[in-house]
């Protein structure tokens, strides 16, 4: 009864059919054949794209820096294998639009030869700032999908004197099990990564949170963390979107992050288990982020698996390896089925954010025949952000975008719970993404027109001032002339 009065720790959410077992019960496949060509986007992270520092035709080794990070929020890009640089040009991006972005094309030489890497004997002797520097130099970004540069987060955590580091092992998206497998197979390395992060942020405790549908991962992590009292491993309820950082922070610490603030401002930083693993490799062995484990699954996949692939591998090669049946594939998704992006074709590279590649059959997809909204309010009750999707959609449908913003459009996290639950198959998230883009475009247009107006006004006043000055000068000239004539007349008269 008491819990009835205390604040509910989980808001909204759905429990979708998991489809995880088929990949979660097999070991991570590490023998992925090295692709002949790798396409490495310069932007695989939130922030500014990296700036290339190699030339076409140049020989590179695995792990060699290809493009350096520019700006405060950015991440460098390294060679995923050894070979020759073929091109630095625009190629289709792994994005629903498949619009071209800048990529480095690397022809591999098959040797997969590593650069000589600086290993550290005892990383705990390093200064905390040094940990951030090394993590940043290794090109590590949030591997849960957010791809925020990890070094920036480590620095923010240290500067804000956070008290808790949460390691996100929720993996709440259906189908995906790469974090699960990683925790089962490489728990020691992950825990080491967590310890290094704690050192880098000068933080006292870490909590590893794992959804209770992954008992094996939980046990493995628990065993690995036993020797370290600073690290606790806990189970959390299985409920999408449990891995949403704010939901997880709320559940684990009871704190709520105000709108417009970062989690470090309430004393918490959150990192993914994959990121902790990458940190371990970067600090212990100096290995930059050049490959990742991803889940390949879905009804059209012949051999679903978790597989470690070099970054920049084309999706088509991954799908060939896993026996994807093209005729059965109704949709290709990068990421999970709730928040992932539907891709138009497979000629796109895998990137740091690629946690999963799904080839779903038509029967796995949600129906698309849109029916009228019956106001069942399921979307309201599943929304973890406390929004009213049905009202927002109604506003957007009649183009009242400002009204939609007023009731919380900008607080939408696109988790997809509303679209998932809607019995009328209304593509709510699509509405919200469209509206957010449109609002941003309108604001930009308004900003531009205001700017133009200001420039015009400035020009007008300037011209007026010049005209005024000219008029004054003209008048002064006339007055002087009259004066001269008058003097002359006086002179003539006096003569």
């Amino acid at each position, binding site marked *: 009864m008491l819990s009835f009065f205390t604040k509910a720790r989980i808001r909204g959410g759905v429990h*979708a059919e998991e489809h995880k077992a088929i990949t979660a019960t097999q070991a991570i496949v590490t023998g992925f054949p090295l692709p002949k060509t790798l396409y490495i986007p310069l932007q695989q992270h939130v922030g500014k794209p990296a700036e290339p520092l190699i030339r076409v035709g140049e020989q590179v080794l695995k792990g060699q820096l290809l493009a350096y990070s520019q700006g405060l929020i950015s991440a460098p890009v390294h060679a995923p294998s050894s070979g020759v640089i073929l091109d630095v040009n625009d190629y289709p991006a792994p994005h*629903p*639009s498949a619009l071209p972005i800048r990529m480095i094309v690397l022809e591999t030489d098959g040797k997969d030869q590593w650069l000589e890497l600086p290993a550290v004997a005892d990383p705990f002797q390093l200064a905390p700032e040094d940990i951030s520097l090394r993590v940043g130099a290794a090109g590590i970004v949030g591997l849960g999908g957010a791809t925020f540069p990890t070094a920036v987060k480590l620095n923010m955590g240290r500067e804000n004197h956070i008290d808790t580091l949460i390691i996100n092992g929720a993996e709440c998206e259906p189908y995906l099990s790469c974090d699960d497998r990683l925790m089962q197979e490489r728990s020691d390395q992950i825990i080491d990564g967590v310890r290094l992060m704690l050192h880098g942020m000068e933080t006292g405790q870490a909590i590893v949170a794992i959804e209770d549908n992954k008992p094996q991962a939980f046990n493995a992590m628990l065993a690995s963390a036993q020797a370290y009292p600073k690290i606790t491993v806990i189970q959390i309820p299985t409920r999408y979107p449990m891995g949403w950082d*704010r939901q997880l922070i709320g559940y684990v610490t009871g704190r*709520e*992050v*105000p*709108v417009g*603030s970062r989690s470090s*401002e309430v004393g918490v930083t959150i990192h993914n288990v994959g990121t902790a693993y990458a940190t371990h490799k970067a600090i212990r062995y100096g290995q930059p982020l050049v490959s990742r484990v991803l889940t390949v699954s879905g009804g059209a996949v012949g051999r679903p698996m978790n597989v470690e692939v070099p970054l920049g591998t084309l999706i088509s090669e991954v*799908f060939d390896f896993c026996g994807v049946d*093209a005729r059965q*594939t*109704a*949709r*290709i*998704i990068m990421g*999970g*089925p*709730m928040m*992932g992006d*539907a*891709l*138009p*074709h*497979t000629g796109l590279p895998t990137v740091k954010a690629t946690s999963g590649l799904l080839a*779903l059959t038509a029967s*796995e*997809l*949600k*129906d698309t025949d849109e*029916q009228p909204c*019956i*106001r*069942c*309010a399921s979307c*309201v*009750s599943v*929304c*973890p*952000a*406390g*929004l*009213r999707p*049905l*009202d927002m959609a109604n506003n957007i449908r009649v183009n009242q975008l400002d009204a939609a913003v007023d*009731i*919380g459009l900008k*607080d939408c996290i*696109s988790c*997809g719970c509303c*679209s*998932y*639950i*809607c*019995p*009328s198959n209304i*593509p709510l*998230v*699509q509405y919200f993404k469209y509206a957010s883009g449109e609002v941003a475009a309108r604001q930009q247009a308004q900003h531009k027109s205001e700017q133009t107006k200001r420039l015009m006004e400035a020009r007008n006043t300037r011209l007026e001032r010049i005209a005024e000055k000219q008029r004054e000068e003209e008048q002064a000239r006339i007055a002087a002339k009259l004066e001269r004539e008058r003097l002359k007349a006086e002179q003539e008269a006096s003569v």
Partner: protein
Amino acid sequence: MMILSKPNSGAHIGANRSVRQIMWQVILALSPATVFGLWCFGWPALNLFIITVTSALFFEAFCIRLQGRAAKPVLMDGSALLTGWLLAMTLPPWAPWWIGVVGSGLAIILGKQVYGGLGQNLFNPAMLARVALLISFPIEMTTWANVSPLFFSHSPGLAESWHITFSGLDNLDAYTGATTLGYIKTEFSQNRVLADIMQDYSPILSFIGWSRGSLGEASTLLLALGGIWLIRAKIITWHIPVALLATVTVLASIFHLADSQHYISPFVHLNSGAMMCVAFFIATDYVTSPNTATGQLVFGAGCGLLIFVIRTWGAYPEGAGFAVLLMNSATPLIDHYIRPRIYGRDRKGKPLEIPKP
């Protein structure tokens, strides 16, 4: 590999639940009470039921055709069927055929389609039609047949039932009477007290549905079971039914304890009239009820309060229809003021303050 499809945002997968499934599950939940009621009141009740439902479907198809759309996919969503079904359950079982037809027309055309169809109506269509019929045709709408179950000796046969449905009853008094609530109301006006009035009242018969009334008023047991199943199947939530029933129970208890001769007990309230039908099937209509849990509690409590007030002091013995319509009109207001708190913001929408350590 190329995929030719419209660009799509997540979620790419969905819960296996469509509008049609929801409507059919509600109908399924209504079925036991409907079947039992139809059996209790025999062939004339079945005639009226079929006429009402069929004409609801007809009017729906007619309106959709007027809009130049294909009627079949719209009819398949089951909403017109459900509206007709619910309306049929609120009519006196032996009412003449035109009551069903006019009622369905009111419900579908005035109650739903003029607002723009499914999801757009402000008022519950079935209740709107029932209240309009009650005010317009008070005799037909308050003539309640005695329980005369099918295949029993005094049940009208097929031929007789056609006569009842299409030309009306010849010998009214022999076959009809008042509902429990109607009887109590009449007797109160004769200055009798409850102890006398309730002498013949059998709570058990009323509970299983062996009493005069519409199909939706008959079986407390079967309607409540259907409703609880709907909550368990997650079609409706508990908020509206519980708030409604609790409000009636609390109010009735207070007044009954204060004066047990002039205020009927909470058990009679819960056990009679359209209480269960309204609590589980009518007030919970998605379209016309608020869309937050708190809003639904307010809405349910409001319905309960109005039902109690109308039953106790109003001119009509049963106030459920009026109560629901009045609260329907308050729904937009409730939804305007009662909203979920957005994550990271306070109730007014301002960002939360960062707690000082």
